[in-house]
């Protein structure tokens, strides 16, 4: 079904799919006019899209190793770009990013620069070389390049720590959206989310995940862009918001000057529900120190280049050349969403702040605001709150509080868009969280099944047994992630950023130097991975327990210290021990030439 002919017909297949999805949106809009309730629309959107992913997952089932691990290495450039974009853009990007920009402005946008700039590193330093290597997983590269089980196991450890930190946040996000859209308790919704994630990846591994991720990208990008364009046009802000919101950005700055940022007393803030925040920082002006901005950007960039679930997407292209180009396409598809997030934040903020707009609430009387339908809905969902701290009867800027997720989830409703758009946004958020969770769970399970089980524990295992082990591990990892997600230990965005720091601490230099420094050897790489991870973790605990920051590095940028320790220890230990043997040096030479056979065989 999926061989040969399917690959040739990809544009047609996904074209029909996109058309079908648009028709579904229109049908839902008609149903809404005919009186279908908001709740039913939400359920339809989530159920419809998830069942399509499940069908794709089932059709892509496979019993072949290279199809399971690397989608048979035949994913075309542009489609791999879309799949990577979905793999990359998590629930955090979709639901939380515009909110972060809304509250923190310029300082937060370091994440936009970091999460895109990292792809330049991926394209130039790593992806083409790892593709030439022909590995199944990232530890597969480390283990073969440096040689020895210790290096392989160290890579598996770093990968698991980083990816597991990330995946709990994604399962948490899937659960949040499923619980809102399907109206079930969060504790159950988490497992509903998990089941949908596993359906997509269990039978077909990387092949199934690839084709569902393409489908998920299409849903999530429509769900993000449609409301942004619609709201912008409805507000009269501009036909093409990305190019035309300069006046709105300036107007927000003007209103900020007019309202002023009043600091609330601790006693007043204590009455605000947990997780909600007010606008306390300027929207567009520079509100942070250069080092704070740059250190966060550096961590996100190096983390991007070290996260295994992204890297392994480039193992699926047909050639080295296509791997390189595919990185460009990935970033292009990511750019479409990332460049829209600040625009959504601007539109959302202005529609609430500007007294000249009918939707504006700042400066209105508190009782009027409390009587608004949408305010009551989102207040009930614990995502909005107003309180008359100074007792003057009107709502001041410092008296309005909102949850980060509300910017994406509630703005369509505030702007007066039909409910069908809110249902669409829920489906988009679900797609974003599911696609990333799928990639992560697969990255961990593949590393454990291929590198730990097959390469170290039982090298004689046959194909059937290896695939069973891979699937069993997938389910176990998924359940472990869901169990931790159900405990709700940390916020979505915080743990995502930590994952980048962990990956950067342990894997960035061992990966890069593996290609670019022939003298790097196994003891050096092991030292680099373990010391990096240990120092990073130590620094995180140090800052979390109230220790004084070193060089202004916070808990969000602890990867700076981790990666630095990793680099130093790797270079020192490599130079202090024997140079790699001639065979390894030849292997590195081989990796640097794009043409010819891969270093590892097609099935290994």
């Amino acid at each position: 079904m999926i061989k040969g002919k399917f690959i040739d017909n990809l544009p047609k297949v996904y074209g029909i799919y996109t058309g079908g999805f648009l028709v579904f949106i229109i049908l839902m809009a008609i149903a809404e006019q005919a009186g279908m309730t908001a709740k039913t629309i939400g359920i339809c959107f989530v159920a419809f899209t998830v069942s399509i992913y499940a069908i794709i997952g089932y059709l892509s089932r496979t019993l072949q190793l290279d199809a399971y691990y690397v989608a048979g290495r035949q994913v075309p450039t542009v489609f791999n770009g879309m799949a990577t974009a979905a793999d990359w853009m998590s629930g955090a990007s979709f639901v939380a990013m515009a909110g972060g920009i809304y509250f923190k402005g310029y300082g937060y946008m370091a994440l936009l620069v970091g999460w895109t700039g990292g792809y330049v590193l991926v394209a130039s330093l790593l992806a083409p070389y790892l593709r030439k290597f022909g590995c199944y997983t990232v530890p597969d590269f480390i283990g073969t390049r440096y040689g020895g089980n210790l290096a392989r196991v160290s890579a598996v450890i770093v990968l698991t720590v980083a990816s597991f930190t990330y995946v709990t946040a994604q399962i948490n996000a899937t659960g949040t959206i499923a619980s809102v859209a399907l109206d079930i308790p969060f504790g159950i919704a988490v497992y509903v989310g998990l089941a949908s994630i596993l359906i997509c990846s269990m039978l077909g591994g990387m092949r199934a995940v690839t084709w569902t991720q393409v489908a998920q990208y299409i849903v999530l990008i429509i769900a993000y862009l449609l409301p942004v364009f619609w709201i912008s046009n409805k507000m009269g802000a501009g036909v093409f918001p990305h190019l035309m919101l300069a006046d709105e950005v300036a107007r927000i700055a003007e209103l900020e000057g007019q309202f002023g940022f009043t600091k609330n007393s601790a006693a007043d803030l204590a009455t605000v529900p947990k997780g909600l925040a007010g606008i306390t920082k300027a929207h567009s002006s520079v509100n942070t120190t250069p080092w704070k901005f740059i250190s966060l950007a550096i961590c996100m960039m190096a983390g991007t280049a070290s996260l295994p679930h992204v890297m392994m997407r480039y193992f699926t292209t047909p050639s080295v050349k296509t791997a390189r180009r595919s990185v460009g396409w990935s970033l292009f598809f990511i750019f479409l969403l990332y460049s829209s997030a600040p625009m959504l934040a601007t539109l959302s903020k202005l529609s609430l702040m500007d007294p000249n707009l009918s939707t504006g609430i700042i400066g209105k009387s508190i009782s009027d605001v409390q009587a608004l339908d949408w305010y009551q809905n989102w207040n009930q969902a614990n995502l909005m709150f107003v309180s008359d701290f100074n007792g003057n009867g009107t709502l001041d800027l410092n008296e309005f509080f909102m949850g980060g997720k509300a910017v994406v989830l509630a703005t369509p409703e505030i702007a007066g868009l039909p409910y069908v758009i809110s249902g669409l946004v829920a489906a988009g958020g679900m797609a974003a969280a599911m696609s990333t969770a799928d990639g992560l769970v697969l990255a961990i399970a593949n590393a454990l099944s291929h590198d730990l089980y097959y390469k170290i524990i039982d090298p004689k295992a046959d194909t059937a047994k290896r695939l069973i082990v891979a699937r069993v591990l997938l389910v176990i990892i998924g359940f472990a992630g869901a169990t931790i997600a159900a405990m709700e230990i940390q916020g979505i965005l915080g743990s995502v950023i930590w994952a980048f720091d962990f990956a950067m601490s342990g894997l960035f230099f061992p990966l890069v130097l593996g290609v670019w420094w022939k003298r790097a050897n196994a003891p050096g790489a092991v030292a680099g991975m373990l010391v990096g991870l240990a120092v990073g973790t130590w620094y995180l605990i140090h800052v979390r327990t109230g220790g004084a920051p070193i060089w202004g590095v916070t808990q969000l940028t602890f990867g700076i210290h981790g990666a630095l320790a990793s680099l130093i220890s790797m270079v020192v230990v490599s130079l202090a021990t024997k140079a790699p043997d001639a065979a390894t040096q030849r292997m590195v030479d081989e990796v640097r030439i794009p043409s010819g056979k891969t270093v590892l065989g097609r099935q290994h």
Partner: protein
Amino acid sequence: MSKQAQHWEKTRNLLFVTLAIWFVFSIGIFFFGAEMEASSFRPLGYPLSYYMTCQGSLGIFVILIFWFANQQEKIDEEFGYTERGDD
């Protein structure tokens, strides 16, 4: 110098150029956030600092990767390392 060493030298030089451009737009300019904000050059009317963080640098990265891929393909072609048959 062998063919392979020459190929690698050119590849490395391309990497340095690419990383230099990357450094300027991901790190370099953000040392001057306040100066960019005060600048009278306002692309599409946005303050320069705001524009670079939400569109400028991001767009430049997209173009940079495609440019890099093209240059690398040229180098590979020059040395006869182009892959055949599989793409």
